[in-house]
């Protein structure tokens, strides 16, 4: 396996653990941006056909959107709703990291199970993609702060993106860009929703939403 892919894989896994262990929203957003740039480079190196225009467009779009636009939107949102800068976990940070290791083992096992079906894909990256999907879900359910749920969603999106890039070689460019656009609209809508939540409740704590029961 190529050392470059393995390095991206290892650093990518570590960004996930950093997200699990970080207590400040701002730092989490910066890790997310770094992760977006890192995995945005995957289309450039993962297939042997080199730097095609399609791969460049895909990687450029991803890096611009996930590395710059989303973090910028989220940082703006955090600055506007400046009530609490902590992520407020339901699961403590040490426990989150231990859960992360278990999830990593689970995703490696799942990848092994998938191996016969996807003979051509580079398996290391398949590990990362499934791990990213699980960590995204875990971040969404284990953090109280609404911004962390957006971050979890974006980690999940990173995972789905990597999975798509490495397993399906011939996806039309239009579909890939459409997915990116969907994610963009999703984050935009979530941003508006969070803005209204903070205006209504004075906090980003998703637990407060139970007060909405009629």
């Amino acid at each position, binding site marked *: 396996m190529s*050392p470059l892919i*393995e*390095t991206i*894989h*290892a*650093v990518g*896994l*570590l960004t996930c*653990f950093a997200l699990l*262990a970080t207590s400040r929203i701002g730092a989490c957003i910066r890790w997310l941006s770094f992760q977006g740039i890192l995995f945005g480079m995957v289309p450039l190196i993962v297939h042997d056909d080199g730097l095609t225009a399609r791969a460049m467009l895909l990687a450029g779009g991803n890096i611009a959107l996930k590395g710059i636009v989303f973090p910028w939107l989220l940082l703006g949102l955090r600055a506007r709703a400046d009530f609490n800068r902590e992520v407020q976990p339901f699961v403590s*940070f*040490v426990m989150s*990291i*231990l859960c*992360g*290791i278990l999830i*990593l*083992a689970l995703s*490696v096992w799942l*990848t*092994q199970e998938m191996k016969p079906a996807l003979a051509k894909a580079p*398996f*290391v990256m398949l*590990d990362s993609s499934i791990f990213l999907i699980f960590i995204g879900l875990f971040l969404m359910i284990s953090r109280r702060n609404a911004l962390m749920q957006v971050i979890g969603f974006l980690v999940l999106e990173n995972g789905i993106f990597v999975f798509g890039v490495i397993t399906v070689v011939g996806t039309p460019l239009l579909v890939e860009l459409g997915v990116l656009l969907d994610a963009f609209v999703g984050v935009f809508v979530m941003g508006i929703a969070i803005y209204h939540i903070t205006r209504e409740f004075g906090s980003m704590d998703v637990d407060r939403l139970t007060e909405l029961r009629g």
Partner: protein
Amino acid sequence: MPAPGSLVLPLCALILAPLLLGIVNRTKAVIAGRHGPPLLQPYWDIAKSLRRGAVYGEVTTWLLRLGPVGGLAALAAALLVMPFGGVGAPVSFSGDIIVLVGLLALGRFATVLAALDTGSSFEGMGASREVHFSALAEPALLLALATLARVTGSFALTPVYQAVAIGAWADALPTFALVGMTLLVILLVENTRIPVDDPTTHLELTMIHEVMVLDHSGPDFGLIQYAAALKVWILGALLAGLVVPVRSGSVWLDGAAMLVGMVLLAGVIGMIESAMARYRLVHVPQFIVGAATLSAVAFIIRLV
């Protein structure tokens, strides 16, 4: 039974180990703008302690006297299986990785027993902290060594470290880098150096290791200081053997490269101690678990 010639390596370690602490202290002094104590000061300190008489409390038993001797004996035994980079250890057999970790644990156990034997509440607190943190650091160390064993396909320290050449680094760059970071953290945690504990402080409430040895005096305390230097040497050799991948086949060249590596490592420890503040005690477990995570990631990415 090892050949007499191969015992040169542990002897060198026994002689040179306190020098590392001298280099650490000198680095810290230079960064702080002081001249600092002489490089050989740790030797004088140990010699001074050994010349003194020992005082034992009336309530203590033989466990207190066993502590320093047991700790030093375990570490000296660990030196026998500890290779020095490409230079092989006097004793090498499959599974000596576990023996090394076990001996480190045995030494710690002796110190903890001696601390508990005094019946002092401070020492009990220190023992509790030491055991708590080492319970987290030990799996991290085992994971790191298991990863190296996995990459090099051998379960004895000497062949493992002989296989860590430049070619192996090129093959497994992220794995080795992650394991190296874990070993650095373990070196700091096990030797209770700064982000975890301050070895120069004497405020009992914040101490971990130093608080356990408050009741030892004279030669006992000298042995403890010496054992601490040996521990820095052993864990430092684990890290330096990984990050100095000089495997020329010549004992002299490999050994010299490793010595340079150890001196640089002592300098790095000094710089870390100058640049960082001690973590709050509640944050230390997070720090150690983070280090274990690095190794776990390294292990799992090599699994497939």
